[in-house]
């Protein structure tokens, strides 16, 4: 399989009145064609900033201080704004969390869908319209042709998110980044939208990066998983590896936090992670999870801990021996 996107050593900083906020710190991963990578973590862990950095859509206050973002051979930071804009929508697309605000309320669905196609392709309006109708139908929107004249406010949340998905697919991109695509939707609609994404991805063999905080989604859709904490990736692995033998104490803690049928008993206490995420402002040295980690030891504080490969395709940022970690998890 060919690699679509390779991110290496990405660091993003944001200037705040009290200092420098390290939003993403030495983030590295890659996605292949036809693969779904889930980036999972809690709010403020840097998952959205990472997604925005790839798209070249970082807010003005944030800056990328290092890192390569290679999309099919081209290093994105080397491109000027115009070239980057040409890639956005054409080779990579993004689906945002809130379909209520990510569509323009003063243009019809049809105008917004066609615009993407007309901008990137030398094609006529008729061809763009046909493509829009095809993709709306493919996205499970009934009476697609009649929807083109409608405005976003006339559609329900689920339909709007389907329109967003259709819009990112207009030019057949090789990479789609979906940032919490179903958080604003009901559970029944969530399952439908995720199904749609998975089906379309299989069909066009694109790479999908799904950013989420919901381990339930990760468990059902990911091929590979990257767990982020306080701006850093702390563990990567396949879906089965992450869920059956998590190695990093944070991943283990996260898994124990969520009620799961068969594993947690109704009404019994859940394994909460005590304490709070450390402040991302100012220099950070050592393991950032150590103040909440039950296995913390002296070695965690002074040195920079790297994301070390523990088996092919699997890495963890922890001083503990992976075998010991696995035994810890099973013992609980």
């Amino acid at each position: 399989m060919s690699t679509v996107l390779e991110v290496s050593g990405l660091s993003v900083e944001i200037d705040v009145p009290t200092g420098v906020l390290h939003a993403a710190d030495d983030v590295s991963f890659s996605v292949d064609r036809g693969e779904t990578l889930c980036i999972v973590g809690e709010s403020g862990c840097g998952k959205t900033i990472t997604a925005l950095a790839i798209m070249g859509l970082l807010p003005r206050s944030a800056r990328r201080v290092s890192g390569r973002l290679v999309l099919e051979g081209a290093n994105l930071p080397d491109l000027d704004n115009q070239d980057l804009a040409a890639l956005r929508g054409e080779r990579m697309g993004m689906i945002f969390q809130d379909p209520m605000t990510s569509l323009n309320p003063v243009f019809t669905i049809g105008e917004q869908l066609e615009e993407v196609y007309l901008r990137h392709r030398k094609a006529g309006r008729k061809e763009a319209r046909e493509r829009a109708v095809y993709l709306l139908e493919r996205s499970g929107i009934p009476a697609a042709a009649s929807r083109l004249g409608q405005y976003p406010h006339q559609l329900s949340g689920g339909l709007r998110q389907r329109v967003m998905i259709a819009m990112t697919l207009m030019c057949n991109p090789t990479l789609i980044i979906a940032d919490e695509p179903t958080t604003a939707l009901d559970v029944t609609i969530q399952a439908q939208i995720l199904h749609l994404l998975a089906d379309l991805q299989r069909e066009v063999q694109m790479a999908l990066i799904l950013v989420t905080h919901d381990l339930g989604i990760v468990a059902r859709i990911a091929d590979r998983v990257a767990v982020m904490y306080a701006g850093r990736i702390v563990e990567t692995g396949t879906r089965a590896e992450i869920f059956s033998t998590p190695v990093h104490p944070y991943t283990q803690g996260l898994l124990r936090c969520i009620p799961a049928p068969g594993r947690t008993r109704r009404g019994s206490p859940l394994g909460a992670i005590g304490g709070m995420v450390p402040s991302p402002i100012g220099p950070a040295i050592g393991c950032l999870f150590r103040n909440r980690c039950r296995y913390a030891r002296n070695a965690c504080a002074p040195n920079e801990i790297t994301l070390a490969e523990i088996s092919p395709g699997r890495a963890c940022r922890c001083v503990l021996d992976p075998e010991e970690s696995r035994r810890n998890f099973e013992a609980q």
Partner: protein
Amino acid sequence: MSVLSCNKLRRTFYVGKGLLKRKLPLHAVNGVTLTIERGETLAVVGESGCGKTTLARMLLGMLPPSTGDISFGSLAIGAISRRQLARRIQPVFQDPYSSLNPRKTVFQIIALPLVVHGECNASERRQRVEMYMDLVGLSRRLLHSYPVQLSGGQRQRVAIARALVIRPDIVVCDEPTSALDVSVQAQILNLLLDLRRELGLTLVLISHDLAVVEHMANRIAVMYLGRVVEEGTAEQVFDRPRHPYTKALLGSVLTPEPELGLPEVVLGATFPNPVEPPAGCVFHPRCPEFIEGTCDAAEPALLPVDDNVHVRCFRTESGPSS
């Protein structure tokens, strides 16, 4: 013994489609009958727009019902004042960022119900607030902090302490953890479980997160378009759902079980317009077990099918469905 019950509760809003068009009735809650026993946790679940929040607001006395009645023990809700009502039932809202007054300190926020109800003198009040801060796991050094200085989990603890400080019979939690991160959610759920055990608290939990509901509730009421379609003990509803909507809802939940993959989606069509609900059973346009000529002709009643389970479906009326 039931602490709270409501009978054929209905709330209708009138919504306009335009300036000159006639406003149409929207039955947000349409004939809900429920009883809540002392010490139990009743969860009300359903999709957005099913009327669960309207129901909660009526139980809290924040919204008068259009018809039907609510009673606390033997007292009808109309017979007690707002003030007395607030002593018996207290809310915890979804968003701890907007449900706390940003200009008051933690002490002022938690003590406010005591002030309103004229309970305790100043020194007792301080003691009582500190006691409840300990109970919900808030450090006493936060006593004079403002909400902006607290994390989401801490704010939700403040909201819970404020709800408990006048010792109400019932606490209504409307999506208490959906604005929080998973690790914080687990802390708050554990806290609610502890409080339930220690104080014998009666909880009404309004939620769309079925994993949370399964973990917390003793009894579940599933709502669809303002109606309760299935109601029963947690074991019955989760282990053996009877109503097709409950089955679909439970089937859509993404539990962290990586071997399962994405669930098959069985619900057809989209959520109906609540202003023009479908004829017959309101669920029939989306129902995978729809019987033509029966389900679209009349509305089924909420009938007992087994011990502790009530279901609103023709399939279960005529015999147990598979």
